């Protein structure tokens, strides 16, 4: 594996399998009474979050703590960053403090790559702008493999605002690497014009796609996009591209419903759909901790002969 995890294009199929297998062995830790192993004792993990994301930050924090690492949360409000400190100077500060790994969430695409120029530790991209969110993709791959037994040949639709979605990019790249058949579905204004070059299909007809799926993956719609003339109304979006009760019935037996959260119930996903048995949205959250443990463990190399449990 590379020294950093910035993009799903940085990992090959063997890397992904290794990450998912490692996560498998860590998941059991979360069900113990004492949810902790000493693998990263004495190592320091910094969560550098330039965007509010309580869910992702907590997931990384729990993952690092369960590996016995020291965790520092560096959020932008109330810190030197809100006083105008640059990413570079913040990075140099973290470097001087001896961060072994930096988990970064940033509103600018490419910021994690820039960070690697200034810190010696490992950089994990926890979501950058409209670029990528690789740990989300890995936990999604983990969840699909866990529930369906394989990734190769799976038929997956990723539905919604692909243009602005870092989740859609990472997940598409990861699924294609693992041999899945991906269809991007959404209003044509929200599908990048050149997306088919990613090795995916593109469709604007969700009803034609749903009956053939193993996984229906819904993206969060940012209703503020509407103001930029991408689609006429939330109501029309929900009618044309939402996963409604009617469309759930068109899904094949055993197909999964997934969503990276947070959901807009009643917009991209019907009010009760998330609570159906086919929905594995809560499993995604649980698996997120195991995936992030696996990544920290693999990247930081679990020193001193400490083995994964």
């Amino acid at each position: 594996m590379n020294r950093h995890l910035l993009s799903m294009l940085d990992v090959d199929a063997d890397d992904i399998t290794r990450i998912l297998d490692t996560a498998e062995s860590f998941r059991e830790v979360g069900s113990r009474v004492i949810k902790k192993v000493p693998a990263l004792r004495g190592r320091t993990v910094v969560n550098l979050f330039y965007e509010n994301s309580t869910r992702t930050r907590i997931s990384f924090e729990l993952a690092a703590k369960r590996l016995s690492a020291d965790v520092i949360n560096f959020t932008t409000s109330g810190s030197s960053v809100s006083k105008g400190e640059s990413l570079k100077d913040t990075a140099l500060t973290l470097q001087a403090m001896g961060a072994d790994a930096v988990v970064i969430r940033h509103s600018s695409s490419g910021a994690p790559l820039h960070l690697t120029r200034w810190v010696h530790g490992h950089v994990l991209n926890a979501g950058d702008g409209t670029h990528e969110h690789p740990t989300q993709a890995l936990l999604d791959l983990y969840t699909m493999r866990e529930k369906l037994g394989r990734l190769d040949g799976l038929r997956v639709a990723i539905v919604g605002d692909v243009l602005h979605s870092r989740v859609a990019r990472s997940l598409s790249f990861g699924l294609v690497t693992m041999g899945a058949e991906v269809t991007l579905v959404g209003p044509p204004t929200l599908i990048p014009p050149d997306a088919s070059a990613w090795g995916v299909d593109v469709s604007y007809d969700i009803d034609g796609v749903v009956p053939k799926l193993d996984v229906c993956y819904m993206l969060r719609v940012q209703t503020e996009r509407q103001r930029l003339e991408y689609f006429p109304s939330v109501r029309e979006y929900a009618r044309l591209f939402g996963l409604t009760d009617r469309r759930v019935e068109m899904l094949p037996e055993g197909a999964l419903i997934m969503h990276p959260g947070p959901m807009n119930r009643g917009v991209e996903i019907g009010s009760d759909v998330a609570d159906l048995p086919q929905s594995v949205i809560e499993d995604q959250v649980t698996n997120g901790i195991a995936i992030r443990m696996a990544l920290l463990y693999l990247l930081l190399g679990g020193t001193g002969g400490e083995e994964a449990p």
Partner: protein
Amino acid sequence: MTTDAPTAIVLRGGRLVDPRAGRDEVADVRIADGRISAVGVDVDRAGAQVLDVDGAVVTPGLVDLHAHLREPGYEHKETIATGSRAAAVGGYTAVAAMANTMPVADHAAIVHEIRDLASAAGLCEVFPVGAITKGLAGESLAEIGEMVEAGVRVFSDDGNPVPTARLLRNALTYAKAFGVEVVIADHAEDPSLVEGGQMHEGLASASLGLAGRPAEAEEIAVARDLAVTRMTGGRLHLCHLSTARSVELVRRAKDEGVRVTAEVTPHHLVFTDDDLRTYDTNLKMNPPVRSADDRDALRAGLVDGAIDAVATDHAPHAVEEKESEFDRSPPGTIGLETALAVIVTELVAPGAFDLSTAIVRLSCAPAQILGAHDHGGPVEPGRPAHLAVFDPGATWSVEPPFASRARNSAFIGRELRGRVIHTFLAGRATVSEGKATG
């Protein structure tokens, strides 16, 4: 300019490439009292300092139609002195300074101030470009007549496209009033298609998660500008063309007799959107570097003359500005110190065109567009001695520091061929043995 009377100098044994005189041959050039005093084989060397330039190329000094010298107002990025030094090191003797300073060069007083600062630096003749609209706001015309009286010949709101066809029509029409050729230069881009855009729209932008600036944004504006120029009979110059279809639109308009000229930057001739996969902010440009097909069409346009001139769009920025996140970084690269070498390396060495054509694009044509009639040759007795001497075979690696105050060069790390040895401004060396004298 300095008042020191330069001694006579003879450049001996160089290859004189002087397209305006139709020369490409070995010839000596004698300079005295700031002017060319003799050209030919074995010119009189009596009382002159002799510089042996055997193996080097002697040409009219280069002329840049498009540089941001940042002064007044943004001296932390560049000053007229440091920008002039960068120009001299690159072989330039004349540079057009864009109007987006603070205050904006939209009235004669600023024009005089810029010229005074350039004279004090004495490294390069600076031709201030006047703003088309007051404060570059795109609303009402600046006092173009007063600036023409102050010697300005090119007007541009560069950075901002002229927002409406009506305003462009008025600018092109009004500029006909002065009995001298006044050029309206537009940064052609449809703003509504590029809002928030960070790079060329295509596969790379889709994968990198950076908002796109589609090629069509430029082509729409180029088509509009050409139509309005045809309608008014005005004189248009198009800044930094970046797409294949733009080149084709200009080529066709020229065939129809529309009074248009166009420029291309060295970076648009070299880089493509794929190069942005490292999120290198030094490759963030406006307009953006585009596809390989676009780049190749720009080269072809420069070769066949659809594009008249190479212009640097020298855009210095402070280190911390370029070290920011990609979407927060200002666009642009410095270019004065590398333009000649990029053209030699990328076009002359592979045989796309000869050195004489390169000098037309880098010196003669831009001098004419700019109304810089002392520059661009011919290198003949009595003419001001604005000259560049360079070694066309010398290879070097682009690395900071630069003569410019800035170091945001897209070319850092590249091996280039062609290095300036001497530059003469009115007979005085501004660069000697590769080093700026001031």
